[in-house]
């Protein structure tokens, strides 16, 4: 008979000392990459995830362009060194699936109609994995999208719940995921409470599903605050630096025009331009 692995002690404490409804520590930093339009780095327990966003940019291949709206394309990838046995690099069944569900979840909040014929490309790189990487990746990607300045209805937040050792647990760790009975990743739009991703691996009774779902959603709201804090910290540095933020940009007293023009027109800038010798084209 195999030795029994106990995932919970008699006080219902987990292997890493957490309570059943406790999250692993989460740390998010926005704007970590210079070349991408937006980026975020997230550490969630033993998960380390980097997300980068490009776009909106011209969609390629051309035939994939949608004349009415933008595409939200996502690539989830696990680094070869992200797990203890080397992962064979390249897309596999699992990462193709995660890419699909994550891009659909993110696409749900983007104002896609504002950017016809373009694509918003999201890249999620899992540098180190320890259960719950799709939730970590999706959470990081939402921050990266906001950092990229893409118009969104809200951020997307994700968290998993599950069951191990006959007990419902929040945010499964590695052993709980591998040896447990069920895993339930959930992603929501916190402002409206819409569910944009819901998967389940394993078995739960309808009542257990409901309880798990609720605890995952509650946790999402907590993570949402961490996401918003990461975005604020990114710009708080510049806003606080000189005391108050910059004075409002006055649009040359042409008051009462609807909000179309925010920046001063560039025309008057060119005015003091020295006389330029005509260039030589059209010989």
């Amino acid at each position: 008979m195999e030795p029994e692995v106990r995932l919970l002690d008699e006080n219902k404490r987990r292997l890493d000392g957490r309570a059943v409804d406790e999250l692993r520590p989460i740390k998010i930093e926005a704007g970590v990459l210079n070349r991408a339009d937006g980026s975020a780095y997230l550490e969630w327990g033993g998960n380390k995830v980097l997300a980068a966003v490009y776009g909106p940019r011209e969609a390629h291949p051309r035939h994939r362009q949608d004349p009415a709206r933008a595409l939200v394309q996502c690539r989830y990838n696990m680094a070869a060194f992200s797990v203890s046995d080397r992962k064979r690099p390249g897309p596999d069944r699992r990462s193709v699936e995660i890419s699909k569900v994550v891009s659909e979840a993110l696409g749900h909040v983007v104002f896609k109609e504002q950017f016809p014929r373009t694509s918003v490309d999201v890249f999620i790189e899992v540098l180190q994995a320890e259960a719950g990487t799709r939730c970590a990746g999706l959470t990081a990607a939402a921050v990266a999208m906001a950092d990229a300045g893409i118009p969104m209805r809200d951020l997307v937040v994700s968290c998993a719940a599950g069951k191990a050792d006959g007990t419902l647990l929040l945010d499964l760790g590695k052993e709980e995921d591998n040896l447990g009975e069920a895993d339930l990743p959930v992603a929501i739009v916190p402002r409206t409470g819409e569910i944009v991703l819901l998967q389940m691996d394993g078995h739960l009774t309808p009542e257990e599903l409901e309880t798990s779902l609720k605890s995952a959603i509650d946790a999402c709201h907590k993570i949402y605050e961490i996401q918003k804090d990461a975005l604020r910290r990114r710009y708080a540095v510049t806003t606080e630096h000189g005391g108050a933020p910059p004075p409002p940009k006055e649009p040359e007293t042409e008051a009462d025009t609807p909000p179309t023009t925010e920046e001063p027109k560039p025309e008057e800038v060119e005015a003091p331009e020295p006389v330029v010798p005509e260039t030589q084209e059209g010989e």
Partner: protein
Amino acid sequence: MVEKSAGRELVVPGDLLGTADLKPGMGTFAEDGKVYAALLGIKNERSGYINIVPLSGRYIPRPGDSVIGMVTDRGPSHWLLEINSPYPAPLHVNEVPWRVDYGDTARYLDIGDILLLKVLLVDETKRVVLTMKEHGLRKLTGGQIVEISHSKVPRVIGRKGSMISLIKEFTRCRLFVGQNGRIWIDGDIDDVHNTISVIKRIEEEAQVIGLTESVKSMLEEMYGPSPVE
């Protein structure tokens, strides 16, 4: 969540901005009679509208914008320009100041040329029409181009062009700022380098109050006291 200082507030997508009495402006959306932020940026209320001044994001062309573009392709009756936006922008031969025969586009502008242009039209499917027919629009030769985030362009220009004329006054460089975040600089090589470092500083410290003053002291450090006055 409120980072109120002098009525300016950093907001994150999904933040509630207000109810009923204010109208949703740029970078916002309305749902169930409430106005929410769609962008990461700074909240700004003006003439009954709530706007978000974005802190990042790609340049989306709008009619009337002056932009700096690079010719990337050439057809028998048009050139295709890259203007730092998600959309390719054609320049038709009718919109250049020369009479160009069909198929003769190569004689006038070639791939790699840098042009100062104006956005003439943008339709609802974001098809862009450029023009070079207005006064002051031309091909740019010599000089260097720096790229900054298009959301920082108003800061580089300054209120009524104060920042840009300050830079020009000190560095004696010729300078064009495109709304698409491209800045063309020509002048003595050291002056150009100084100008670039000033512009980079403005981009980094775009949100700092008293920016013009700090830029002025930076320029005075480089050039000594102001040549005018």
